[in-house]
């Protein structure tokens, strides 16, 4: 049963998928720190308001995974911002997140060398994101 994207239920499912992944723990063993995703509104795609998602990653474990307010999102070690359509492309693996960042389709606040050093962790969590059975606000492909 697909879960509505970017809801608390979806965040719980995402967290569970990460925890269940057999490789995640070892790949992410060096990663420290929270990441928030800011989804810019696109009313035409049924995303009328910005959405803030906060995720806490720590040495292969995961902590808080919550839909949150702007203040909490801004407190994360890494804040990534993009239009809803871009995030959906990333989840569908039509757009690599690193490339999106380099091309300015996503923006990031945080330590870029840290992300580069841990690129395998970043790719892994995005890979898992694509596996969550999701119902997107503007419909699935």
């Amino acid at each position: 049963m697909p879960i509505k994207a970017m809801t608390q239920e979806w965040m719980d499912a995402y967290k569970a998928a990460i925890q269940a992944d057999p490789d995640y723990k070892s790949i992410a063993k060096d990663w420290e720190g929270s990441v928030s995703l800011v989804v810019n509104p696109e009313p035409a795609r049924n995303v009328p308001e910005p959405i803030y998602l906060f995720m806490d990653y720590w040495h292969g474990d995961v902590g808080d995974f919550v839909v949150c307010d702007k203040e909490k999102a801004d407190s994360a070690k890494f804040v990534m911002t993009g239009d809803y359509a871009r995030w959906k492309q990333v989840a569908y693996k039509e757009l690599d997140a690193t490339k999106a960042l380099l091309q300015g389709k996503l923006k990031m606040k945080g330590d870029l060398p840290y992300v580069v050093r841990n690129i395998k962790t970043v790719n892994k969590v995005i890979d898992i994101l694509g596996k969550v059975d999701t119902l997107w606000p503007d419909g699935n492909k």
Partner: protein
Amino acid sequence: MAGGYAGKFLRVNLTEGSWSDFTLGDDILKMFIGGSCLAAKLFLDRYPLDADPLSPENPLMIMTGPMVGSGFPGTSRFSVCARSPQTGIWAESACGGTFGPDLKRAGYDGVVIEGRSNGPVILAIDDSGVSISDASSLWGKDIYEATDELKTRDKSAKVLVIGPAGENLARIAAIGNDKGHFSGRAGLGAVMGSKNLKAVVVRGTSAKAVKADGEGFKLAMKTAMQEIKDSALAEGLHMMGSDANMDLGMVTGDVPVKNWTSGGEFDLASNLSGPTMREKYLTKAHACTNCPIACKRVVKVDDGPFATAEGPGPEYETCAVFGTMLMNPDLTAVIKANELCNRYGMDTISCGSAIALAMELYEKGEITKDRLGGLDLSWGNMDAVLELVRQTAYREGFGDILADGAVHAARRLGGSAMDAVVHVKGLEAPMHDPRGFHGMGLAYMMSNRGACHLQHFVLATEQGMASWPQLFDMKDDYEGTTSVGKAALVYNSENYGILANSLSICHYVAYSIRPETLRDAFNAITGFGFDFADLLSTGMRDWTLKRGFNNLLGITSKDDVLPKRAMTALEEGGAAGSVPDTALLLKEYYALRALDERGFPKAEMLVRLGLDDLKSRLYQ
């Protein structure tokens, strides 16, 4: 007179010890712009193509473009061009640094150096005149020493210098500008050495090299600065240098390992990466003239066997070729190898690739310790590597075999050597694996100086550093390990990217700004009023001109190939199981470029591009 140009070129004859100025008409400048494109035009029009590259008849050209000296970001560049002693075909090598703007300030758009001096000389150019003076006291000095001495004589001078490798006519010799910037590829340092020209020194004092102060230019400049400020790519380059690619490229299958035989060495990459260099050895970021990105590294290794005084640090290519390619996990040893290559004046890609070949042959038992003068050339033995770097520059011992690059070395060594070299048309491939990125494979096959990542913007478009759908049809994301759709991407990325070397703008800056901004700045400076179609067709002309140059030297479709090693799939890493579909790539590409089955540009394309003279020579 078109805007952006100093208005004259210098022709120097070292045999006669004479010089004179010459000019070119606006029609020529508008068609061929500057840099390496204009150099190719001048070469074809004025010099014999078939002269030995190390003979006095091979001209050495140092050319700027119309944006150089304008103050626009990334426009400090110049191209050094000649027929290559390493490959025998067209050679160009663009360089950043400080030299280009000062040459403009001294009143010249370019310098063409002919002949050969009887003894070592310095060519000095400033806005009061030209002189040729004795360089005996500098001959034998390395690039850092010679640069320091020349700057002691005149601290505001900008210098181009060769080191021992160029003096010894190593066909992989480079030319250094102010220690940290190099025209590295294709052996142009040996051409300079063959002329007994130790250094070119410029000092330009006119306040502004070119008049670029109109409202259009100011707006384009402001826009470019903002775009660079907003660019994550520019930020990454500033923070990590080009070696930011090491971690990312190991994941995607871009980074060659163990002389192109392995992949997926993540720990090795991590030791050698931009973030590691930043954490442990970076003392500051450094910039070419007028560049806000400052991607260049200044590094220092305080202690250990490879302690290195503060100085220019390695770029990604060097970290890969003296790191992953040699199975060396020690970044301090890479920093030392980089310093030695800088001092001796050798291209790091060619030098490291030749040593990687030797290491592989040593492992296979095809080269013995005896032949190496007792050196143990086991993978990762960097003491032996550094000694071999020295021998190569001085053509001593086994270094004499490596001094002309991996292809010449493989010819001399025989056995399995040639199968272990990744090159196209005699130039060793840079450190981007065509099995991970098939478009790069096509670009290697078709680049006019041999396997090259800098005659086009394929690195940026295929790897997703930049996206320009306003310029040509582009997808949001390209999978590296597919050949489908890549011919068009390469063709378009060449037509745009090759302009970097005629406009003389840095690739990284061009990746970080929108094409509209570059176009507007170019038009504001030159007054040419080009639209995107004009720019792209200028790039087509540039590529076709150099292709014709090479055709006249015997290059045909038979030379447009990837070597066996690059067509052998890897078992691990991001490129595992993948090889480019070269038949598909070439078929589609040949159609786009209007190349006939021999690999010659078709007559109608030559006419369309205004290359009628070239047509007459190719179709006589």
